[in-house]
């Protein structure tokens, strides 16, 4: 894992002091709320429905056991004993006190963490593949470049007041597990035919009000040019992105307005001036950062373990969990394990301090002390010996982290929604729970197979509803909460054949009470129409929306639906 050196430590500590001073001036009335807002946001602090909310960065989703224990400590000391893992590989605390916020940042700094640029109109936390370094389908490990980008973007003086927020994702595997095409800049790390290391650059993807798949503006860019090229993109955006209307301020709108060709031309024109300048990456720097991500000292193990095989044969519940939660690993005899934060009745992505501590302990006992956070809002143990899987399962079950639903209908991705978020049009968590309660038969949900449901409480799309096989969006109609349903979205992962697609709305919105029935009808339609081996998304792709739409609306009374 990356470790801070003097520069990292100095900057993060100075940031805490800077923020402490700003907070003090704000509390003393010297800094107005309007002036303080962008400053606190760039330190992860929102003012929410009940209290401030603090969003802490987990750069590219990687945590050490020590860091996770600190997150647990913060949950206990400053919050109500839990935290919420988000679709952007951050963790959010919903109940900290404004007065405590500088102390929390200081605690984070003590374990080489921060909340820098987790909000505000700046370059946000860099996200990546949660299986980086361990996935068998990896082409290039995305972590070194992600860390290099974290450093480059941190306190970039020119790009701290962009027209709007700016999200960068990096993926280095055959499967896209970072929803890369949905980012302001998406980066695929790869090798060309000559074996040279480089990146493919996408620009202008995003969700929100105007969901768009990013455009490839560079098919292959040699690795050393990555920073200068991104600088050129950001300079064009900073100067020409719209600032008159916050709904039209993302880079995707600029790319659309200029057209991808003209946008690319402007970037290339700008890039000529910075190309090969001092911002050009060096071999030494790439090697140095890469050296922070060595493979741990794996044992030489057989890939098959007799004890494990026996447990599989004798224990159907264990076998079912293995089928969903245990993932292949690059090294024989090891697996990665997805711990589900989607137990029915628990808000998706929430973990208690005790659970975080348990996961930290397992990561040390069963692995090398490393944990990953996925954009699906689950936690991952990266290097578990096959022979330890059964013991881990028993303990994870006790801790409520072994729901065998990864990738299935109840592994719902949901934003905090109206229960916490002051921007929400509608609640997300109760909808997720109602759907989970409806689908309470494990045999049935396994029979349904892979199905991603994503719920966002408003157009900001924190729940990535556009990319859900079934997407649910909270809308406000005359002060009432309604839900718009879309189908056919895909986040670029193998769950959607590697495609990135934006779901299409099926029709008028529904009231909260109707949602479990609507989802049931969609699933029933799929079950009737599916061919052998087909998943929900496959049937939507093959037959389109029509049969689903017909069934859902035929069975509903006029008064229950609303014109969308």
């Amino acid at each position, binding site marked *: 894992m990356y*470790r801070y*050196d*003097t*520069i990292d430590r*100095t*900057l993060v500590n*100075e*940031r805490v002091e*800077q923020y402490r001073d*700003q907070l003090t*001036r704000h509390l003393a009335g*010297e*800094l107005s709320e309007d*002036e303080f807002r*962008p*400053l606190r946001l760039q330190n992860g602090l929102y003012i929410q429905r009940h209290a401030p909310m603090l969003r802490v960065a987990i750069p590219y989703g990687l945590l050490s056991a020590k860091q996770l224990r600190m997150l647990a400590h913060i949950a206990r000391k400053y919050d109500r004993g839990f935290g919420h893992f988000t679709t952007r590989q951050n963790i959010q605390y919903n109940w900290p006190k404004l007065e405590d916020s500088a102390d929390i940042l200081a605690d984070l700094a003590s374990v080489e963490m921060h909340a820098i640029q987790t909000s505000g*109109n700046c370059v946000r936390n860099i996200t990546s593949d949660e299986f980086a370094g361990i996935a068998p389908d990896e082409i290039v490990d995305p972590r070194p470049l992600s860390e290099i980008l974290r*450093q*480059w973007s*941190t*306190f*970039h*003086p*020119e*790009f*701290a*007041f*962009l*027209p709007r927020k700016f999200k960068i994702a990096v993926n280095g595997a055959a499967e896209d597990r970072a929803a890369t095409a949905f980012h302001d800049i998406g980066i695929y790390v790869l090798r060309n035919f000559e074996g040279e290391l480089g990146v493919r650059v996408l620009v202008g993807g995003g969700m929100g009000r105007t969901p768009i798949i990013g455009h490839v503006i560079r098919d292959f860019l040699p690795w050393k040019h990555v*920073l200068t090229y991104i600088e050129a993109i950001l*300079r064009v955006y*900073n*100067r020409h992105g719209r*600032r008159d209307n916050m709904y039209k301020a993302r880079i995707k709108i600029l790319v659309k307005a200029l057209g991808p060709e003209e946008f690319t031309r402007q970037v290339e024109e700008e890039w000529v*001036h910075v190309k090969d*300048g*001092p*911002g050009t*990456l*060096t071999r*030494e*720097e790439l*090697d*140095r950062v890469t*050296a*922070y991500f*060595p493979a741990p000292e794996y044992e030489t193990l057989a890939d098959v373990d007799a004890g494990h095989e026996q447990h599989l044969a004798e224990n159907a519940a264990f076998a079912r969990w293995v089928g969903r939660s245990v993932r292949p690993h690059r090294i024989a005899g090891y697996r990665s394990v997805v711990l589900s934060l989607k137990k029915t009745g628990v808000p998706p992505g929430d973990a208690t301090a005790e659970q975080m501590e348990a996961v930290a302990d397992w990561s040390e006992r069963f692995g090398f002390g490393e944990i990953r956070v996925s954009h699906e809002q689950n936690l991952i143990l990266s290097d578990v010996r096959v022979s330890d899987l059964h013991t881990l399962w028993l303990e994870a079950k006790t801790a409520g982290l072994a729901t065998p639903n990864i990738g299935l209908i109840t592994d719902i991705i949901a934003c905090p929604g109206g229960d916490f978020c002051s921007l929400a049009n509608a609640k997300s968590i109760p909808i997720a729970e109602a759907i989970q309660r409806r689908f309470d038969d494990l045999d049935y949900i396994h029979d349904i197979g892979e199905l991603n449901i994503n719920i966002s409480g408003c157009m900001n799309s924190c729940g990535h509803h556009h990319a859900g096989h079934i997407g649910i969006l909270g809308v406000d109609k005359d002060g009432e909460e309604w839900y718009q349903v879309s189908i056919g979205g895909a986040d670029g992962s193998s769950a959607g054949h590697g495609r990135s697609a934006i779901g299409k709305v099926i029709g008028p919105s529904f009231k909260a009470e109707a949602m479990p029935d609507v989802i049931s009808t969609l699933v029933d339609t799929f079950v009737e129409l599916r061919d052998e081996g087909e998943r929900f998304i496959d049937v939507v792709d093959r037959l389109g929306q029509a049969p689903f739409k017909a069934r859902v609306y035929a069975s509903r009374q006029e008064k229950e639906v609303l014109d969308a």
Partner: protein
Amino acid sequence: MPEIIRKGAVVQDDWQVVRPEAGQGVNDLPPGHVIVPLGLWLANTEALIARGNVAVWLAGTDDPALVAPWLERLPLVAVDFPKFTDGRGYSVAYLLRSRFGWRGELRAIGDVLPDQVFYMQRVGFDAFAVRSDRSVATALRALKTFSDAYQGSWDNPVPAFRREPRPWPESLGQDSLKARQQA
């Protein structure tokens, strides 16, 4: 006389920023040192040169290339921040310095607040007309917020990774660094 920060010190300054209303022109300028918008300068260059004591300010929407031909004749250039959250001025300043070679005073005007001057100085500003209801002393202190930086900008174009040797991960030791470098 108002106080501004210039080259890291608080100084008295009598340059007046002129924001003409529609229909106002060169003849409406107040006496003394004036900083006029780029548009006014471009439309009345000769008259303004004849007047003397004239500098130019750019809006975030202005193309800095347009002022480039006149830089030699200008005593100072200012960049306006209509709101402190409008970050265009940072790129305009960076371009004036790094691309168009402006070496004279580059002044931030408008909604200039203490908490932004650190980044402003990095992109090339060396003078700050801090908003009159805000503390110049706080701004002066804020210029020293950070003692290092990862990425290059105008103040130091060389990023941290080229500037100083950063350590090799301890866990791997120096031997492995050498082995890698030889590989």
